[in-house]
């Protein structure tokens, strides 16, 4: 595993050392969100709405307050008033009003599971009993779930102030359409009229959950002097702090926030749910308070990812060259307005060369939890439509589906989704590698078929702060504000070790609380190895510079006559020529220089590059039951440079399997009252080990020239192709279009029966 590749130009980059936090995590010592205990801590419980849509007439908390052991009760009346001001929330922005209403309903509950009130008591059992004693007087309102119903004439309106953005003239009455965006390129109608072949389809996916195994949890402590502390499991404790402080109207620096280990997030742990409520409970009780979700709370009160309805038409020449694309689509974004439309547009415009497009996208709110980012948010749903439609085109043209994609794939310099040209991207390399892979030509058995899909995700950069500090013994401390969700401590240590040319084990990485390092944005958007990594490299280089300068004075030569090599300063000229000083020897002399050797660097890079992926999937369909087995799966991805290949492959495999679950099984199922019928892992069926084959990975390394080691984000692209790769395989196996997900056995069976 750990042998360096002798052909590599790097010493540590590209090796696979054991992660520094590994032992804690295989022995049960690591402290995650629900594990943390503060001295004197008491327990909170939340009362959640049983109705999908209702006005809160009044809340009577007196019986709960009277229960022995109860220390505090909180309702939205305890929240400061909120404006519609937009603040940064994770990687997007949301209005303060929506953020606050997500934590505790204001005036109306908007979904089953919406938090309505909260209690803190000396034990969890008492808190839960007390929550049940709170009487909420609801005026139940009609509700909507599907976008068609939400947009229908006379539909119940979720937000009385919601006027559709993007329509000219602006409508004069509210609706459930939060946002409409139209994008055009060239002349889609004319190009479509001149196309030799036209394919089209109506596609639909339903909401799915991120499905992290660790439920949300936090501990809050708020003192009478206004200073508070928060311990959170999140993708970004700085953003959790900022959002919490904003809705509570307190200065961020009054709220010191500590990161705990995080048990998965995938985008779903970038925002706040429990934190301000726990803070208010703590303030009233004068004690630290833990609030934690159950699995049912997680399904009904957090996430999910939006569903989509897409009408898509693609026109092409007889040789398969794409001419035009027309689409209208509706994201089903849950109770609060989301921002999936832009990424849907990008998916349609950024993957293939298409000169003519007319696209119209809508965000539609309805009565289920406000959706959150889920790994390449908005893209998998749209790629399902696009890549399924392309497969129809390939069949119509009798063309190899990979050849069709190769003919149209975007190349470096082509306009990107937003006109900004694509840089050093490796989509063509991925498609060629997929074609050359033995999987592509392997024989298939009865009822088996092969599907393929390509896709990309834009990735991100953004702000990060890092410090690199040397101890007197020359060991290296890297400190960042980016939570480690999948091995990033290891990649940060690798990059610092690469710069300083010291062994990986000499570098230790800590994730510091908000008072101990400057701001870093969330761990999300595939940004940490890229952006935080850039800061690590820059800080390590500054440290190297200091070491070289100091060594030069110790040698009595100019800094240019000192070379940094193998973790030591080598003197090139003068009396000391040929001598060297190790990192430790120089660091130990800090007392004779201006101070200890350290550097802190803040960055905000936006020269990230997108990641492209191509997935090949073999399925076997049982025509008797409609059951689909995944029998072989290969992922090919342009990863830039793999800093720690195990964790890059892990992202590719994990994303692929989440996408397989999305394609085959996962779905929010609502009853007639808008209640989720399957809020547990038994009925919300995520893939288990026995559902799957090995997931083969092919890493294509087309480095990003803007990163010192060529890093591109790798975490999101792998969830984009699988929905279509699976659906295309099932379509080919059955000879029938598969345009609605999930492809559960009953749906496939019914489709087969209907075709008979």
């Amino acid at each position, binding site marked *: 595993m750990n042998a360096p590749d002798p052909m590599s130009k790097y010493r540590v980059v590209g090796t696979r050392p054991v992660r520094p936090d590994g032992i804690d995590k295989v022995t049960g010592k690591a402290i995650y969100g629900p594990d943390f205990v503060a001295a004197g801590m008491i327990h909170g419980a939340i009362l959640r709405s049983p109705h999908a849509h209702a006005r809160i007439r009044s809340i009577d908390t007196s019986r709960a307050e009277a229960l022995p052991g109860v220390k505090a009760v909180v309702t939205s009346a305890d929240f400061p008033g909120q404006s519609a001001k*937009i*603040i*940064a929330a*994770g*990687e*997007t*922005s949301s209005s303060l009003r929506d953020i606050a209403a997500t934590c505790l309903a204001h005036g109306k509950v908007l979904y089953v599971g919406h938090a309505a009130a909260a209690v803190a008591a000396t034990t969890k059992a008492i808190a839960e009993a007390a929550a049940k004693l709170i009487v909420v007087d609801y005026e139940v309102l009609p509700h909507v779930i599907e976008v068609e119903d939400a947009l229908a004439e006379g539909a119940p309106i979720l937000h009385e102030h919601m006027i559709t*953005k*993007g329509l*000219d003239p602006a409508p004069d009455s509210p609706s459930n359409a939060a*946002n409409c*965006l*139209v*994008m055009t390129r060239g002349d889609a109608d004319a190009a479509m009229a001149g196309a030799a072949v036209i394919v089209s389809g109506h596609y639909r996916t339903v909401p799915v959950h*991120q499905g992290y195994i660790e439920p949300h949890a936090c501990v809050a402590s708020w003192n009478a002097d206004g200073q508070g502390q928060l311990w959170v499991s999140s993708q970004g404790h700085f953003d959790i702090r900022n959002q919490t402080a904003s809705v509570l109207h307190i200065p961020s620096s009054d709220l010191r926030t500590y990161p705990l280990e995080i048990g998965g997030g*995938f*985008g*779903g742990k*970038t925002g706040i749910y429990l934190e301000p409520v726990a803070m208010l409970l703590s303030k009233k009780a004068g004690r630290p308070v833990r609030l934690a979700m159950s699995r049912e709370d997680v399904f009904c009160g957090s996430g999910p990812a939006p569903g989509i309805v897409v009408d898509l038409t693609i026109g092409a020449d007889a040789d398969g060259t794409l001419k035009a694309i027309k689409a209208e689509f509706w994201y089903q974004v849950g109770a609060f307005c989301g*921002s999936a439309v*832009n*990424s849907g547009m*990008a998916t349609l415009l950024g993957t293939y060369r298409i000169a003519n497009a007319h696209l119209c996208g809508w965000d539609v709110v309805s009565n289920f939890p406000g959706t959150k*980012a*889920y*790994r*390449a*948010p908005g893209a998998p749903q749209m790629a399902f439509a696009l890549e399924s439609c392309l497969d129809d085109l390939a069949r119509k043209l009798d063309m190899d589906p990979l050849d069709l994609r190769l003919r149209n794939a975007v190349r470096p310099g082509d306009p990107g989704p*937003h*006109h*900004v*040209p694509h840089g050093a991207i490796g989509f063509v390399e991925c498609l060629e590698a997929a074609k050359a892979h033995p999987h592509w030509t392997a024989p298939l058995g009865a009822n088996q078929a092969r599907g393929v899909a390509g896709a990309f*995700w*834009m*990735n*991100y*950069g953004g702000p990060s702060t890092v410090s690199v500090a040397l101890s007197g013994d020359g060991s290296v401390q890297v400190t960042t504000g980016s939570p480690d969700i999948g091995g990033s401590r290891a990649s940060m240590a690798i990059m610092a070790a690469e710069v300083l040319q010291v062994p990986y084990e000499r570098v230790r990485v800590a994730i510091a609380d908000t008072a101990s390092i400057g701001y870093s944005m969330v761990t*999300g*958007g*595939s*940004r940490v190895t890229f952006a935080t990594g850039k800061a690590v490299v820059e800080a390590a280089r500054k440290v190297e510079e200091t070491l070289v300068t100091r060594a030069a004075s110790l040698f009595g030569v100019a800094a240019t006559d000192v070379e940094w090599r193998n973790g030591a300063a080598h003197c090139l000229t003068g009396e000391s020529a040929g001598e060297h000083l190790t990192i430790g020897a120089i660091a130990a002399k800090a007392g004779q220089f201006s101070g200890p050797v350290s550097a802190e660097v803040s960055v*905000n*890079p*936006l*020269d*990230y590059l997108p990641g492209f992926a191509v997935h090949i999937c073999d399925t076997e369909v049982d025509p008797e039951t409609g059951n689909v087995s995944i029998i072989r799966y290969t992922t090919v991805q342009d990863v830039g440079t793999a800093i720690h290949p195990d964790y890059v492959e892990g992202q590719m495999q994990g994303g692929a399997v989440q996408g397989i679950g999305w394609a085959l099984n996962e779905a929010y199922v609502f009853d007639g009252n808008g209640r989720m019928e399957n809020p547990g892992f038994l009925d919300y069926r995520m893939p288990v080990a026995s559902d799957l084959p090995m997931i083969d990975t092919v890493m294509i390394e087309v480095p990003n020239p803007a990163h010192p080691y060529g890093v591109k*984000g790798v*975490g*999101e692209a792998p969830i984009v192709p699988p929905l279509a790769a699976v659906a295309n395989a099932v379509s080919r196996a059955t000879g029938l279009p598969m345009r609605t997900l999930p492809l559960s056995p009953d749906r496939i069976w019914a489709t087969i029966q209907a075709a008979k």
Partner: protein
Amino acid sequence: MIEPFPGRYFAGRGEFELEAPNLFALVRALDAIGSGFAEMAGEDAAIAVDGVMRADWSAPLEGAQEVLIVPRIAGG
């Protein structure tokens, strides 16, 4: 600039000839045409200068030909 900005702030107009020393000044100039644009842009816009995303709005624009204002997109 591309949608949603032209529709939302500039009555559908998406192209402007403007001179500005840096992106702050440019955004201010646009805000004078489409009021509210600047406040939104701080949170929701990404800006490319001659095809390269620019994070630092204070950097001089001298010699730049084309500035593209596009929506910022979230990740997971």
